[in-house]
Each structure stands twice: as structure tokens, then as C-alpha cells.
């Protein structure tokens, strides 16, 4: 959910101006000095960042941060997490309270340019979708003319929906709720024919229904929501570290390196694998990290596919197919530049 208020925009703008002050030390140096990477996460979004029963953070955003910690320190546990609200997230990064923002944040032109921040990549390609009641007998979104829709107030979801129906020349009756919980309850109570939200959350919302099989998710995606880590502008070294931590995970999946076989892979003859794991070349040094930073990431967190399956993939409560998040070699769009 991406709430936008003018207040947040003003805050962010002020922040952008102030944050452009030159940093005393580089982020990598200060991170090494304090001994951990401080990451900003959501205050509880299933599959992306949520505390488990032991009080430790889990989720794909959390693992993305742990990969950075593993690259710098050799241990995924050297990451600390600061839960942030949607309004606070950019200020926390600008002010130096956190080092990386991995908070389910959509990469847009405005955010990339006006906030004094840089997106380092995409760890999940999301998009807005529809959850419909099966009783409607609808198979695709174009049959939804005249439907009543449960939506959450003040989100871009609401705007995307209006855009979509207008371009298709269809009508809809919105029923607006304050929180996502109320939205689901409204849908469950049959007040509307369908519910709209980010696709990654639709499955979780569906599982909250008393009878999950009574509803289904439509195949259409009506908006692009590329979610990825964000760092402060003006520190290219740290930007590179965060960017390549994710690229290494994607490359590792492509090369077939997993958490389980990474030790065997160290003996591989394949030069790509050798470079990635640091047995040859000086890739780590170029980033200001140890030579085996790639090995550490895979050993501690796993490759991208493992990270995906563990947190949001099939078998987890979110139960999301890889879809466009599959590797480019497998029909998706996950593609990373080579490590060489």
C-alpha cells in the first residue's frame, strides 16, 4: 500500500536538500565500524518482513538485507532491523538512521530523482491484481464492468484502479475502507464483488477468508510495482555493494549454486563460478569487500530462488508462483549483469 500525502512529500523534499550534505565517512566504513548493517523494513508485511514467533525478522526484504550483511561481515546475522512506517521510510534513510531501505518500496521516477536516494535493483516484481468472488463466474478483468470493488482509501491502488477502468471504458462502484483488514472483511461479508491490492498480498488476504476456495485471483496485472532496496545518493561504493549483493544472488541461481552445494562449487572448474565465489579474481576487492563475499552471501542467505521460495514461493502461506520473478532463462525477467 503506498499512501501518499503532501506532508510526506514535503518532509521528503526537505530531507533531500539536507541529506545532500557531504557525508563525513563512507557508508561502508561506518557500517564496518559499528559492526552491523541497519536496514529499514515494514512493521509487518507477510512474506516481505515480519517478526516470527521467536521475535526474529523473516521475509524476502529481510533476506535481501541479510545478503548485504553477509557480503560485508560474512554473517547474515550482522543485520539489524528498524521497522518503519510508509511515511518515515525515506527520512530514516536520508538522516542516516538506516543504511539500506528494504521496505517493499516501489521504484518510480519521482522517488529515484527527487528524494536524494537511489534504487539499487529489484528484488521482487509486483503489480496490482484482483481477487474476485468465484460466484461471479468471471475469468478475466475485462468482464468486470459494473462490479463493486473493495479498496483501501488513499493508496495508489485506488488511482491505478480508476485509471484501468477508464482506459477500458468500464464502470465500477468503489466501496472504500480505511485499513486492509477492514477491506478483507468487507469482501468476506460479500459487500463487494472483488478486492484489489498488490498481487503479492492478494494470496495472503485470500488465505484470511473463512473459505479461501470461494475466491480466486485473476491473471491480469494492472500496474507495475518493481520493489527493491534503496540507498542514499552520493555514496557510489555503498550503492555498488548493495546492488551487487543482489546481483550475486541472481547470478548464483543461474549458475546452479545453492546454499547446500556452495562448498562443493568452490572446486568447480567453471570460471564464472570461480569468480563469483572468489576462488579466482579480485571481485571482492573491487567492491571494497573480502574476496569470498559471494561465497558468504550464498552460504548465509542462499541464491535468489532459494530466498524467494523460502519466503513467498509455493508451499509458503503466500504461495506465489515465480511468474515474472523467474530467471530470464526460465521465462521470467530476473536478469543480472555478469560477475567478471
Amino acid at each position, binding site marked *: 500500500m503506498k499512501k501518499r500525502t503532501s506532508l510526506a512529500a514535503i518532509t521528503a523534499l526537505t530531507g533531500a536538500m539536507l541529506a545532500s550534505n557531504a557525508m563525513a565517512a563512507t557508508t561502508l566504513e561506518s557500517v564496518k565500524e559499528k559492526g552491523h548493517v541497519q536496514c529499514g523494513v515494514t512493521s509487518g508485511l507477510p512474506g516481505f518482513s515480519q*517478526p516470527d514467533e521467536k521475535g526474529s525478522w523473516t521475509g524476502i526484504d529481510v533476506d535481501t538485507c541479510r545478503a548485504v550483511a553477509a557480503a560485508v561481515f560474512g554473517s547474515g546475522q550482522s543485520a539489524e532491523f528498524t521497522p518503519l512506517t510508509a511515511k518515515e521510510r525515506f527520512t530514516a534513510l536520508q538522516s542516516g538512521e538506516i543504511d539500506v531501505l528494504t521496505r517493499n518500496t516501489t521504484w518510480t521516477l519521482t522517488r529515484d530523482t527527487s528524494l536524494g536516494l537511489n534504487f539499487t535493483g529489484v528484488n521482487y516484481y509486483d503489480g496490482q491484481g484482483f481477487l474476485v468472488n468465484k460466484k461471479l463466474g468471471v475469468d478475466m478483468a475485462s468482464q468486470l464492468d459494473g462490479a463493486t470493488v473493495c479498496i483501501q482509501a488513499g493508496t495508489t491502488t485506488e488511482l491505478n484502479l480508476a485509471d484501468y477502468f477508464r482506459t477500458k471504458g468500464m464502470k465500477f462502484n468503489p466501496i472504500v475502507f480505511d485499513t486492509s483488514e477492514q477491506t478483507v472483511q468487507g469482501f468476506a461479508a460479500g459487500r463487494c464483488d472483488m478486492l484489489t491490492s498488490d498481487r503479492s498480498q492478494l494470496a495472503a488476504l485470500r488465505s484470511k477468508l473463512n473459505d479461501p476456495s470461494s475466491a480466486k485471483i485473476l491473471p491480469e496485472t494492472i500496474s507495475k510495482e518493481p520493489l527493491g532496496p534503496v540507498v542514499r545518493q552520493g555514496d557510489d561504493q555503498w550503492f555498488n555493494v548493495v546492488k551487487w549483493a543482489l546481483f550475486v544472488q541472481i547470478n548464483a541461481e543461474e549458475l546452479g549454486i545453492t546454499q547446500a552445494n556452495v562448498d562443493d562449487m568452490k572446486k568447480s572448474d567453471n570460471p564464472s563460478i570461480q569468480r563469483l565465489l572468489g576462488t579466482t579474481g579480485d571481485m571482492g576487492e573491487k567492491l571494497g569487500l573480502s574476496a569470498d563475499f559471494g561465497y558468504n552471501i550464498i552460504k548465509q542467505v542462499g541464491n535468489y530462488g532459494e530466498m524467494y521460495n523460502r519466503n513467498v514461493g509455493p508451499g509458503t502461506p503466500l504461495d506465489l508462483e515465480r511468474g515474472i520473478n523467474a530467471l530470464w532463462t526460465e521465462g521470467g525477467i530476473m536478469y543480472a549483469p555478469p560477475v567478471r
Partner: protein
Amino acid sequence: MPRPSELPPIKEIGAIGWMRKHLFSSWYNTVLTLVSVYLIVTLIGPLLNWVVFEATFAGSSSSDCKGEGACWLFIGQRLNFFIYGFYPDALQWRVDVMFGLLAVAFAPQFMERFPARKYFGLFGMTGLPLIGYFLIPGGWFGLEEVQSSKWGGLMLTLILAYVGILAALPLGTVLALGRRSDMPVIRGICVVFIEVWRAVPLITVLFMASVMLPLFLPEGMNFEKLMRALIGIILWQSAYMAEVVRGGLQAIPKGQYEAASALGLGYWKKMGLIVLPQALTLVIPGIVNTFIALFKDTTLVLIIGLFDILGAVQSTITDPAWQNVAIEGYVFVAFCFWVFCFGMSRYSQNLERKLDTGHKT
């Protein structure tokens, strides 16, 4: 010789008499009584069913919660998180010690005859926060340090409320005295402080402390979010407290001030020995009212991403591994708040009774 008085008629005494007088004294009272009885009977049954009889208490996962009743299992499983937040398991004894000391300091206050209970209370105001200051964050005497970003749950709620209450009372008293001072500069400062802080909502204070303040601090100077929130709460609360205390000061008759001056007491002795003890006693209900309000207001730290007990519950009820545990979660939070607020209220009533001089009648 006077006749022994006769017993009153059966209709006027005992259960029947009481009911006639209180429940069925007129036709509309009878109707109200019947409607109330109907409502109670129809509500209590399902409520008890939900809370106790059909509820699930034991098990290990969401699938064990099959009945129609509440899934208390969820609360049980997450209790550790709800109480300690992210505080490391191995170090939670430190928090337990503080909970224990809190009980030791305040439980005696509810027992009239407990020996030396005054000193237990005094310990609660001085020793307890001091021990907590060293014990909870650690980093001293070989204790491992625990960053404040790892504090959470009930423990964080209590820290916020306790520190807020403890610091706001003296600060508020000083502000109240300052506002009634003869010195224009001091009076001016106090008036401006009180009026500014009292005129902004707590949510704004917290938001400023969390979002705006860091932008104006130099890079690298980063004091923790919790600390910023705490300072905000203390300043905001002390402005409220000042006005409550000022109400008490105004209620003290002029004669008391004059008598104290006539005895040759200086300003501080006059205030400390004569005026403040009476003024504070007078406004105990107001003070406790403000404290209870603050205790509940601490939940607002949710908007700056601190996990107090409500935040901890809210962040876990969305867990897709559990179905519809939102009601259980909120009921649990409400119960915790009720316990503490009701405790404060009872304590204040105790205090009023004890300090009652009989002058007011």
C-alpha cells in the same frame, strides 16, 4: 414499657424488598430490568462460549484452532514477543527482574497494613528507574548491550509510560510554580512552554521527533528513536501536568500562603512544606487521570515504528500462517491495558482515602 418494634413486612426486606425497590419500582423500571436481563442472558452465554468453553488453549499451530471459540493458542505462542519484543531470549531475565521489582515496589501499596510500604513506594520512584537504566540497555558492569531498537511489547509500553509519568510530575510541578511566579521572565517562559506543548497533539510531537528532528541534526549525531520519542512524551506530558498542579495551587486559600510567610518561611520552604503537599493531595484524581491517559497514549508510538504492545500484536495478526486472530489479539491488548489502568485508578483511590484530612467536608 415500649412494645418491641415489629418486623417490617416481608415485601420490604431481604431480596424481595431490594428487588421491589431497585428493579421493579415503576413500570418503566420493570421494562428496563426485563430488557437488561434478556440482553445479559443472550450475550453472556455466547461470550463465555467464545472466551472459555469453545476456545482453544493448547496446541502448536493455527490448524489446532478448530472450534468456534477464541484461538488463545495464538496469544500463547506469541506471548514472548508481545511482552519482550525483540529482546534477546538469553537476556530476558533482566526484564523479568524489572517486572519483579515493579511488583515488589507497588504491590504493598494496595495492602493497608503492610509494614514500611512507604519505603517500597519510594524505591519505586528512585531505585527502580535507576536500576532499570543500567539493567535494561546493558553495556555496564559486563552486561551485554541491548539496543533500544530491540525493545518492544509490554515492556516498551511500561518503559514509555513509567518514564513519562515519573519525569512529568516534577517537571510539571516546577512549570506550575513558574507560571504563578512573580518574576516576569520565568513566568513568560513557563506560559509559552505550557501553551505551546499543550496545543499540539501527541501524534504530532512523536512525528516531529521521529521524522523531522533527525534532518536538523548533523550527520552522524543520531540519538535513538526511542530516546527522541521519550523526550517528546515527557515534555508534552509535563505541560498537561503543570496545568493540573496549577489547579491545585489555585485551590489553596490565600491564608495558607500568608500564614506560611508569617512563620518566616522562605519561598521553597513555604511551597515544599505548606502549599504543595495540600495542592497535590487535592488534585490526585486529576493527576491520575492524566497518567492513565498517557498510559493509553503511548500506543501512538506505533506511527513511528516502535513496537509497543499494540504494535507487536498488530504486526503479527497479519501473519498468513494464522487465520483471523485479530479479535483475540485486540482483546488481549485491551485486557493488558485494563489491568494497568484499573490498578492505577485503585491506587489513587487508596491514596485519596489515606491522605484525606477531613477538611473538605
